[in-house]
């Protein structure tokens, strides 16, 4: 029995309505408890901010495209290395850190749970191999369904229930967590080098539209009782004027909502929040998108905040990545995956002086500041697409301090500055709001009942930052805040101190969550019976060799979802 007593911390626990109260936290055997014995190890957290461990809803940390990015970019790693210590493994950064380094760097920032948001189902065994070798943090992955041949066929034929059973089978086969949709239908078109940009364009050979795919999968998500909403990367990403596609995408499922629970999450909105009709007049669609989000409860968003500097873009959106390759002239990797999805990778440098990049930077911040309810928006950089996750402390200072973002704003492309509304926005996030957008809100959205809060029974994943709120004003002393967030005073994972003063002291193994929707046995049997013939027809691997066994994962945690079918 290990016990900890965290004393006199300034606690921000939004889910339990604790707003900066000075209080003690008791921990026993990896959980928050009411009290501990006198033998508990005591941590003095006086003058420190205490929050639940960070929960990242969208960060590309593992799997075939991440590793292709590593192989593409030795120049990315050379400039940023991690030495082996007696506790930690060696590794490299910068924008595509090696597996061990990924775990250490998240833990150092007080993050304890991270979700990989795009895994090609056929290659998900690879994703799990990497997730298993990311130490400390808990994790999960979202399999891609938006261009899956069988999904498109079931939906076209109106076989919603069979499609739901197939997805349940696939989630089990991949040990996946949520339904991810990237450029629905568009990646299939890209299999022919073609483009599909509008919601009502027909997917070549499949006679189905992105709208139908989105609506079908949204209904199935509900039928399966999934803990998270459908997680959507829109069509038409990266093109001027695409903020309309984004609003259309959110709106195309609006009528499916019930009970006020979000049913669609639109990710990295910055990439699909452009106004204008060319790169010369591209502007921020954040005010319009924020207005839509403010008025509707069925949708949540994250910005994919741009951080100026060098990074690596990687998405399942093959056609978007090709566009980025043509725009930047940078090297390009494309990987199409049979009957399922694709991927592209392009190194990219976001420049302050570049008009478009500066507008992109502004879109993310405007969105974060204009969406009024922090429970509807989560902090991401779409790591590594808009910037490495190690930039979070910097991004948080932009949210908490008008001065901090003003300093950057003063130095960006002046046409972009003129075009953006950012200068006129005075809002500054509080620590409570930061706690919502980085852990409480993300946990709630993902349906993680024991994460993102510090109530009795919660996982004892805790971040302690050296910020004395009685003397530090985040608006003015943003550098102090940034430094403190980059190196947690303590990170506690499942009741164990893993980081002290920003240094790794223990490297336990985190768990991998996956969702197993229970559909009726008859429906499942009927669906899988017809599936083996389809497998033979569509895949180059046998159906028997496709599923990832549960014991293949080092430390799996199954979450059962109760399906309505």
């Amino acid at each position, binding site marked *: 029995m290990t016990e900890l007593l965290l004393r006199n911390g300034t606690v921000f626990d939004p889910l339990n309505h604790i707003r900066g109260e000075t209080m003690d936290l008791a921990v026993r055997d990896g959980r928050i408890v009411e009290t501990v014995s006198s033998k508990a190890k005591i941590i003095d957290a006086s003058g420190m901010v205490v929050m639940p461990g960070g929960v990242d809803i969208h960060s590309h940390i593992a799997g*075939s495209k991440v590793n292709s990015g590593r192989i593409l970019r030795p120049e990315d790693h050379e400039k940023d290395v991690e030495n082996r210590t007696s506790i930690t493994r060696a590794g490299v950064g910068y924008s595509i850190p090696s*597996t061990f380094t990924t775990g250490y760097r998240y833990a150092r920032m007080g993050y304890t749970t991270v979700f990989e948001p795009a895994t090609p189902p056929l290659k998900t065994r690879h994703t799990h191999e990497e997730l298993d070798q990311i130490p400390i943090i808990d994790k999960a992955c979202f399999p891609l369904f938006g261009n899956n041949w069988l999904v498109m066929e079931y939906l076209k034929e109106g076989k919603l229930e069979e499609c739901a059973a197939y997805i349940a089978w696939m989630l089990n086969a991949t040990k996946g967590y949520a339904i991810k949709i990237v450029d629905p239908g568009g990646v299939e078109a890209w299999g022919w*080098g073609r483009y599909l940009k509008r919601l009502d364009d027909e997917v070549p050979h499949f006679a189905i539209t992105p709208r139908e795919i989105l609506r079908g999968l949204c209904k199935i998500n509900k039928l399966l009782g999934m803990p998270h909403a459908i997680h959507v990367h829109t069509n038409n990403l990266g093109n001027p004027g695409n903020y309309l596609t984004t609003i259309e995408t959110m709106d195309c499922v609006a009528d499916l909502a019930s009970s006020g629970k979000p049913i669609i999450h639109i990710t990295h909105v910055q990439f699909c929040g452009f106004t204008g009709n060319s790169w010369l007049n591209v502007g921020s669609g954040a005010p319009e998108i924020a207005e839509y989000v403010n008025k509707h409860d069925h949708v949540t968003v994250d910005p994919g905040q741009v951080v100026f500097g060098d990074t690596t873009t990687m998405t399942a959106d093959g056609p978007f990545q090709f566009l980025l390759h043509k725009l930047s002239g940078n090297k390009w990797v494309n990987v199409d995956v*049979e009957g399922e999805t694709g991927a592209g990778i392009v190194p990219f440098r976001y420049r302050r002086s570049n008009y478009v990049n500066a507008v992109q930077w502004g879109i993310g911040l405007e969105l974060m500041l204009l969406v009024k309810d922090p429970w509807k928006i989560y902090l991401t950089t779409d790591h590594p697409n808009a910037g490495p996750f190690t930039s979070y402390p910097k991004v948080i200072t932009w949210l908490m301090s008008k001065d901090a973002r003003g300093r950057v704003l003063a130095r960006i492309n002046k046409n972009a500055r003129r075009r953006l509304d950012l200068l006129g926005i005075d809002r500054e996030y509080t620590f409570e709001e930061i706690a919502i957008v980085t852990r409480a809100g993300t946990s709630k959205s993902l349906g993680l009942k024991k994460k993102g809060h510090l109530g009795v029974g919660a996982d004892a994943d805790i971040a302690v930052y050296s910020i004395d709120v009685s003397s530090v004003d985040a608006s003015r002393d943003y550098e102090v805040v940034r430094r403190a967030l980059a190196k947690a005073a303590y990170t506690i994972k499942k009741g164990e101190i893993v980081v002290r003063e920003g240094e790794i002291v223990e490297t336990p193994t985190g768990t991998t969550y996956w969702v197993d929707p229970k559909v009726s046995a008859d429906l499942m049997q009927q669906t899988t019976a017809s599936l083996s013939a389809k497998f033979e027809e569509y895949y180059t691997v046998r159906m028997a*060799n496709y599923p990832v066994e549960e014991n293949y994962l080092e430390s799996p945690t199954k979450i059962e979802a109760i399906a309505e079918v």
Partner: protein
Amino acid sequence: MVEKTIQDVVCTFCGCCCDNLEVKVEDGRIVSLRNGCALSMSKLLNYSRERLSAPMQRKEGDFEEIKFDDAVEKTASILANAKYPILYGWSLTSCEAIEIGVELAELVGGVIDNTTTTCHGPSILGVHDIGESTCTLGEVRHRADLIVYWGCNPVHAHPLHMSRYSVQSKGRFRKGRRDRKLIVVDVRKTDTAKQADYFIQVAPNQDYELLCALRAAVRIGELEQDSIAGVPVETVEEIADLMINCEFGIIFYGLGLTMSAGKSRNIDAALSLVKELNDRTKFLIMPMRGHFNVTGANQVTAWQTGYPFAVDLSKGYPKYNPGDTSAVDILARGECDAALVVASDPISNFPVAASKHLSRMPLVTIDPHITPTTLASDIVIPSSFVGIETAGTVYRMDGVPLLTRKLVEPPTGLRSDEEILNAILRRTRELKEVT
């Protein structure tokens, strides 16, 4: 007699990793198989020949049997005491074993390198420069109407590649051979070339010139030379037209491109040609990886260290500079002072200077077979076969991961690479802690 038939077996020979073998086992022995090729037959029916039954050590020129624990002890002591050891091989074992190998290399401050260094190393260097437009093999099966094999001979080296994944396969949008065109580029008329619609005989060591000419022809449509690399200009222009006008094309390439004059420059040219073809149509490219898990060796090394092969961990962090940190070059310069070879036979394949140095220093080999490398070793630890006697993850040439299974028991006393390496890692860690 106990009989069983095992379905859906993943073949562990070449990078095709065909996963539909049917293996018949009688009394713990594989007696026959279906759906295999000549290579898988020869391996699965003959693997148990020419192997050792116990660890051996060299004593005054001769080998003598030693206990497993003693072999581990001696290996750990060699590695722990070495200043700059090399850990080489890895493409014929499982990812699980390779993971331990990288950790061991890190622990002893050595270099970990895999056989990529002598086969598709230039392919990876090309990717660093250009990137690559690629796909899984099923995409080719379903969509490709133009298939190019360049400097490779799948009929002999990847016998089922053409029927399972490319020209002869039946896909959703291509029903078979008649729906596809086959171009073969090689210096000689191979058995693969005999099946081609277009056989382009390139002059030896002039692939680079031909690739650049094709690139020019794709860009500007016409060339003024009479011939390039021994190929008439009309043919070059015709091939360029075929490439531009196909709906979905792919180049598969082999060691004829990576190991002929130009090496990584050839790959740069091929990757650039394919990249530029994507302005006109859909075009992809894929190296024909040889060993069944050489792709996995690249993957594991990359996710653990950031780099896919030739990783130097002597400074406490990963450093990568092929040509400098690659096994052949370190050996040829005589810089390393011990070596652990796992699932590979470098003495047969390396240049003479490198092999000589390898046989002069303390050398430990873990391998199921007796090979020239085991014969030159100081300690040999025989292991079981991945995908036959032990399970493990492997990566197909297109990066699709597959879990291979155990079909039969290994001979008594033989352990898997994973178990052997774990034992060595544990003991080496203890020795390192003492010092």
